[in-house]
């Protein structure tokens, strides 16, 4: 009898373990990524994407906002409000890119701050404020690991690269500083990523999420123009505001960004590959 019980127990154990393992486990999500070697340190990738951001923002500020204002186009921090017919100011353009990136599966964070921001809520405090003091001196990027959020973080100088940056901030009634000059470090972008190194694919994904973000916010601006009721609607196509009441389409805008920034980025990617 005891022998039979032992046999039953053994049979049950074998059957149970067979039943449990017959389907195999849930595939590990990291299995494919693990095979690909990590080729870029997070700092390198954030420098690449920050460079793309510099080029994009400068193009938007100079060629769209600066020249557009001369054509009578309006840009406002409350551009999304129904009663305001305007486009996003450069800082809000960046905010839009950041929001779009967050909607993508890429875990990249992007923020803009300053020690004299127009919106007091964007003022640096704590570690960011200390590092920003260094950035103002040498304009070199600062890297650190944010222990609280467990994120690798980099800060890059945000320069007054266009006359429109200086004039808008100096004239803005909420601005706590009104003597900005061209070339000043007006603020810094802060970028965050959870991993210390990235594969080639992850790096391309980061750059793509930024590029997609710029197209996304630019398209939102063009959509907003479509809803203008009282203001003059610029013609959207291949021409730029410097030629008249025109705005480039999203494709034309992104093409120009690519032309301006792709060489540097490609060089990084190709050399490391």
């Amino acid at each position, binding site marked *: 009898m005891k022998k039979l019980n032992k046999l039953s127990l053994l049979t049950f154990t074998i059957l149970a373990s067979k039943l449990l393992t017959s*389907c195999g*486990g849930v*595939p590990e*999500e990291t299995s494919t990524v693990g095979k690909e070697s990590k080729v870029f340190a997070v700092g390198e990738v954030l420098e690449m994407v920050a460079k793309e951001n510099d080029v994009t923002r400068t193009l938007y500020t100079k060629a769209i906002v600066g020249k557009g204002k001369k054509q009578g186009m309006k840009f406002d921090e409350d551009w999304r409000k129904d009663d305001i017919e305007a486009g996003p100011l450069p800082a809000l353009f960046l905010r839009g890119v950041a929001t779009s990136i967050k909607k993508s599966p890429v875990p990249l*964070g992007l923020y803009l701050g300053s020690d004299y921001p127009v919106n007091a809520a964007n003022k640096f405090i*704590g570690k*960011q404020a200390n590092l920003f003091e260094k950035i103002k001196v040498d304009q070199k990027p600062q890297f650190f690991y*944010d222990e609280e959020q467990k994120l690798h973080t980099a800060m890059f100088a945000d320069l007054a690269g266009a006359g429109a940056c200086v004039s808008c901030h100096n004239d803005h009634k*909420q601005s*706590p500083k009104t003597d900005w000059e061209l070339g000043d470090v007006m603020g810094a972008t802060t970028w965050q990523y959870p991993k210390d190194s990235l594969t080639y694919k992850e790096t391309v994904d980061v750059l793509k999420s930024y590029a997609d973000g710029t197209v996304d916010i630019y398209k939102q601006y063009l959509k907003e123009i479509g809803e203008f009721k009282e203001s003059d609607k610029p013609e959207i196509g291949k021409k730029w505001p410097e030629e008249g009441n025109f705005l480039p389409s999203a494709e034309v805008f992104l093409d120009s960004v690519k032309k301006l920034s792709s060489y540097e980025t490609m060089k990084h990617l190709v050399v490391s590959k």
Partner: protein
Amino acid sequence: MFKINPLRKRQFSGIIIGLITGIGVFYFFTLKSTEQYVSIGPMNNGHEDLSCITCHANAKGNLLQQIQSNISYGVGVRKASVDFGTKDVSANNCLECHDRPNDRHPIYRFSEPRFNEAIKNIDATTCITCHSEHHGARVTINTGDYCMNCHQDLVVEDDPLDIDHETLISKQNWSTCLQCHDFHGNHKYAVPEKLSDTIPLTAIKDYFKGGKDPYGNDKKHKGLSEADWLNKLIK
């Protein structure tokens, strides 16, 4: 044929009854019409018509795979555990229906290091801090003074309010913020210029509990219905 020892008959009957009851209970509680009995509490306002699956998506793999994977993880032959039954609900689930480009306080902004101190007081990096589900309410945080965590230094030039913002802040009247401004900025309404014309705090608290919307019903973006959400997923 299969013989049962007469002394084991009661035991056998017990096993059969237990199995039938277990399968019956499992079947009953997994029916869509009985979801209300499984729910840990009443759905929040606006979510009353949602099915469980809207937030509680099935986890990857079948039940046996999940058990095997978690045992493997337990004995150290697997790097990560897996969700069991349903996937963990995250803020991304909320944003699938409530993604608003005009959000004044999008949760992602609070991951920036300068908010590290503020989020110790109120974790604004996730929706559930204020909107915990299954409470039959709209807002589940009890206080209305959370603006103080970030807006201590607020300066408003040409302040339109009869009692200016600086005075309100210096007096620590932090609950007055919500009397004019809805947190996410999704309502279209004229902000009052006199403190006496602002929304009473009691009306805001009622709204939090699921009462009438004191900011009005004119919203720029509305949350998706389950059908709209499904259509979005299919696309």
